[in-house]
């Protein structure tokens, strides 16, 4: 990490923040609200063709042949592609390139892409798809991860001899087993040990905009792809690889995006296919996936079966945590290598673990591939652990908030797995939910059927692990100054609705003392913008924010220096603020920012600057030790109050208090929006959503009617309580806010249901039918301890 990467938490000028910390409207808010924003599907180019896919109707089959002749003969069809046309494999993680844009030799789930048609309109393309004759030889398929794990044949992905040696017997995608401290001793020394099984069912992103890509090859041979991606840079790299084109001949642009949540992080078949078809046909090509196709593209949250064992002393101090996790990866690797690490690596805060061991195995199954969804890899283990922590607290008779306080790891420390913790506002988060929810008056004291519960979590603000190893900056910014008084910001960062373009605008305005309206942003265009690694792993505020400060301060010193020379005063006296540049020692001496830009342009030549950010050396000294190693971690605590209808089994979340340590809320309105949106999504995953693949290998309901995301009337009161710990390395002290606040929502509901009913819910989703069965089981058990887990007696 260079000095340029550290800017401190303070305002750039002496008298506090002018733009940062305010609820500034989003840069694209009006455009989106009025329908003027241009999304990928709004792009229509002259002569454009429409692209449709043929998909596999089999969960697992060899492709004997694909006959496209009848489709090609249909009037209006310009081209048909099969796997043979795009034979090069890719994968977002360079170590696991196991995807083809179109299947070459076999299909691995119902919905796998087999062929694609470009035609003059969508109806013709659809009609042509029905004329393609694909001949399959069905293979045995696996829908259950345990069966896939223990069954060596058939392999969903053919293994090399080396992989065969490593991958044990079954359809293993990745295994990570790591051991920190003496877990066995820790459990042996514990006064109480709770052991139990927990399961997460699988959910998907449901961004309201389906995936869409448009490609055009210009007369000069330059390929331009507009795509609804959240990582322009990786799409750019993948296109170059698969299309065998120099990256310099490809331009990727992300238009306005209608939500992503991790579901637009991978390179997708449609991007390669529209590009290839545009090259073949000489016409622009567009593909907009249907909602059903988005469910097949998936990359949503992995189903996990988790076995946890936690030991604690009588006073509540944890002694050891042991986890064994089976991860259902679906049919391709996607980010699965990272998922497998994250399932263990990200649990070691905000509590101090004296010893910790995890053994996570991701297996392939013949279902839509899983990948990163908001809170990638760590939402499921967090659910298991936070419920188990409450079970430990219950055994010990300790209040759930107190046991979390007791084990708080503190700030400026290191986790058992070697992650560096800088700022840590978790204790304040606990205080905030305790006060706001009136916890002490409610916990254990609410009428039957009503309960309150809590949970905590931590999450990364980006990591120092770029998916392809390199030492170049992880975030870059360019500023260009116009004589009109305008500053243009060029950022490779992807604004996916989270407000990253607004953030860079506000930082530049803050640093240059300008009205944010005089700063405009061009983003996510590989021709125009410096590389940024994209909107994933909650890295944007931290990394792009720091790069923006870096660029703005360089520009500032040019302008201040030029004006100081013009006035023949010490540069320290020249200050930018309120849209002006003035002499702090003589306030009457002032010029507009525009005049200052012109003075600087005379003295410094054409004005501009660049800025960048790279992480410091981080992570544990072991294989995988950098995965999950973040320059700063956010922390969250939730309290939720629920009402359980004992007759219907329905859980109603009445209130959800979300306390989140975002370091500094650069825009508190956007931070609160992320906190509420995260909690909404977590509650939905706990109570309603289920990405369910039925006994035939078919997604049970690939539509927004049958995949039930909550409507406004299903959404509880969400209370965002922002905690600011001022991180020493974050931009003005900021950390992430987009993913962390999701984590506690699921276990907090389970823990509240226990308070309400005495029943532990450990198997997601918490459907009313399951709740009723659990209540019945408890009634049958009579006075037996409702903790449905094996345990050692208190010594």
């Amino acid at each position, binding site marked *: 990490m260079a000095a340029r990467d550290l800017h401190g938490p303070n305002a750039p000028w002496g008298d506090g923040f002018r733009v940062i910390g305010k609820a500034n409207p989003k840069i694209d808010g009006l455009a989106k609200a009025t329908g003027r924003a241009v999304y990928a599907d709004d792009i229509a180019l002259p002569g454009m063709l429409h692209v449709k896919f043929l998909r596999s109707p*089999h969960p697992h089959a060899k492709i004997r042949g694909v006959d496209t002749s009848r489709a090609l003969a249909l009037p209006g069809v310009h081209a048909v592609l099969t796997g043979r046309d795009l034979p090069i494999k890719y994968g977002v993680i360079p170590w696991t390139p196991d995807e083809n844009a179109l299947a070459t030799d076999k299909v691995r789930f119902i919905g796998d892409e087999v062929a694609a048609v470009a035609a003059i309109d969508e109806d013709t393309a659809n009609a042509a798809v029905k004329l393609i004759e694909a001949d399959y030889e069905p293979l045995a398929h696996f829908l259950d991860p345990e069966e896939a794990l223990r069954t060596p044949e058939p392999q969903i992905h053919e293994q090399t001899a080396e992989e065969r040696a490593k991958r044990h017997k079954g359809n293993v995608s990745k295994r990570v087993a790591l051991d920190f401290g003496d877990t066995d001793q820790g459990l042996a020394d514990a006064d109480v040990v709770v052991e139990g099984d927990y399961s997460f069912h699988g959910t998907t992103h449901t961004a309201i905009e389906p995936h869409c890509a448009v490609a055009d090859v210009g007369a000069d041979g330059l390929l331009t792809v507009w795509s609804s991606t959240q990582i322009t840079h990786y799409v750019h790299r993948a296109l170059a690889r698969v299309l065998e084109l120099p990256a310099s001949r490809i331009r990727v642009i992300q238009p306005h995006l209608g939500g992503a949540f991790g579901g637009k992080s991978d390179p997708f078949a449609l991007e390669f296919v529209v590009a290839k078809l545009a090259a073949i046909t000489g016409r622009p090509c567009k593909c907009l996936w249907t909602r059903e196709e988005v469910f097949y593209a998936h990359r949503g949250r992995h189903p996990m079966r988790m076995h946890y064992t936690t030991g604690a002393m009588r006073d509540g101090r944890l002694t050891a945590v042991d986890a064994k996790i089976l991860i259902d990866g679906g049919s391709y690797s996607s980010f699965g290598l990272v998922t497998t690490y994250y399932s263990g690596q990200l649990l070691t805060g905000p509590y101090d673990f004296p010893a910790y061991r995890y053994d996570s195995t991701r297996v392939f199954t013949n279902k839509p591939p899983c990948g990163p969804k908001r809170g990638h890899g760590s939402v499921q283990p967090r659910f298991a652990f936070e419920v188990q922590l409450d079970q430990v607290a219950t055994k010990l008779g300790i209040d759930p908030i107190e046991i979390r306080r007791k084990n708080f790891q503190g700030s400026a420390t290191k986790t058992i797995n070697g992650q560096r913790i800088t700022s840590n506002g978790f204790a304040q988060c606990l205080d905030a939910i305790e006060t706001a929810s009136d916890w002490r008056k409610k916990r254990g004291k609410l009428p039957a059927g009503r309960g309150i519960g809590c949970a905590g979590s931590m999450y990364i603000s980006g990591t120092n692990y770029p998916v392809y190893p390199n030492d170049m900056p992880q975030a870059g910014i360019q500023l260009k100054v116009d004589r009109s008084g305008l500053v243009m910001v060029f950022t490779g960062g992807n604004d996916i609705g989270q407000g990253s373009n607004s953030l860079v605008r506000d930082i530049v305005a803050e640093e240059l003392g300008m009205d944010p309206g005089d700063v405009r942003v061009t983003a996510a265009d590989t021709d125009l913008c410096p590389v940024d690694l994209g909107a994933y792993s909650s890295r944007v505020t931290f990394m792009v924010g720091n790069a923006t400060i870096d660029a703005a301060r360089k520009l500032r010193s040019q302008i201040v220096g030029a004006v100081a020379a013009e006035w023949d005063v010490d540069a320290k006296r020249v200050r930018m603020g309120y849209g002006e540049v003035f002499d702090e020692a003589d306030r009457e001496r002032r010029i507009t920012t525009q005049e200052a830009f012109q003075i600087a342009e005379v003295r410094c030549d054409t004005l501009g600057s660049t800025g960048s950010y790279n992480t410091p050396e981080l992570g544990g000294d072991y294989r995988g030790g950098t995965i999950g190693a973040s320059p700063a971690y956010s922390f969250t605590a939730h309290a939720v109050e629920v009402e359980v209808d004992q007759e219907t089994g329905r859980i109603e979340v009445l209130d959800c208090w979300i306390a989140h340590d975002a370091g500094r809320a650069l825009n508190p309105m956007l931070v609160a929006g992320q906190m509420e949106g995260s909690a909404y999504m977590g509650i939905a995953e706990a109570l309603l959503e289920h990405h369910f693949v039925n006994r035939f290998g078919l997604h049970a309901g690939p539509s927004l009617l049958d995949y039930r995301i*909550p*409507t406004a009337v299903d959404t509880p009161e969400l209370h965002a309580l922002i905690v600011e710990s001022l991180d020493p390395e974050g931009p003005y002290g900021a950390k992430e806010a987009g993913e962390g606040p999701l984590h506690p929502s699921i276990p907090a509901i389970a823990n509240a249901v226990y308070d309400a009913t005495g029943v532990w819910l450990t198997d997601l989703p918490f459907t009313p039918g399951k709740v009723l069965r659990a209540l019945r089981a408890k009634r049958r058990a009579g006075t037996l301890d409702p903790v449905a887990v094996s345990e050692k007696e208190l010594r």
Partner: protein
Amino acid sequence: MLRLPEFELLSPTTVSEVTALLAEHGEDALLLAGGTDLLPNMKHELFTPRVVISLGAVEGLRRSRVEPDGTLVIGAMTPLDTLAHDEEVRSRAPALAQAAGLVAGPQLRRMGTLGGNVMLDTRCQWYNQSYFWRSALGFCMKKDGTVCHVVEGGSKCVAAASNDTAPPLMTLGAELVFADANGERRVPIADLWLSDGIYNKRSKGELLVSVRIPPQHAGQRGAYGKLRERGSIDFPLFGIAVRFDVEDETIVDAAAAVVSLQARPLALKKFDAAFRGVPTSGSAFEDALATAADLAYKQCRPMANVPGDEDWRREMAPVYLRRTVRAALDGTGPVHHV
């Protein structure tokens, strides 16, 4: 986005034009009322009519009136949202107003019509899917295939009647007025249904013109209860309408009907017998309520036709019966979880 299959759109302006077109095009034609169900079904290629006859411009189908004897006549094209807020409907047929107000969500209720809901196609998780999805499944007997995936080896389609307005109309003894080229006929709604999920109505090639609700007892109390996962949008997982006629706080007549179990909406048997002559509160009432709840549990056997946990749906039948009965007598319906 899914595309609509190609069709010819016709926009007649009178009932007789509609019936003439129906006679002319026969099975090739489908009627378009609000379109909230027909259009998604066409996109799924469940229906691929050559001709779609829009009812939007047909005169008179949105008109409602109360006849001198107190019969309420509701035009079939009356939007569900209008129905839900109509004062005559709320007072003369409270359960119907409540049910109409719980169909789908607000936007769909402004488009969807009473006639469309009465004539709604049956629904099933193996049927209401795209062509690709159904082809991967190998289809089912309701459309393009031969087997049933709800009841393996079953010979009869068990797709579920899913219209919220059917149960209240059954408890109210409604009559449906159909028109074809030969004129009009009236059908008591209880006689409309067939136990066949492929097509569950004794009406083909006709236009539903209006729904007639006969004069009701002055002491009528009614309510509708709807079970669904979300507080909006979703079709019923179970729906129940009850009607009580009360004189001097004694029940003199009662009816209940349920939907979302099997191909046809069902009148609950012996519901009237359980309550007739019973006061509206007290231990005799509680006994009657318990009896009726048991009847509901025995008669209501949800199948895995619509999405959702069928065991839970069955458990909810007595629960929703009890709650809906109480709501009707207390005047607090509908019974809905939000």
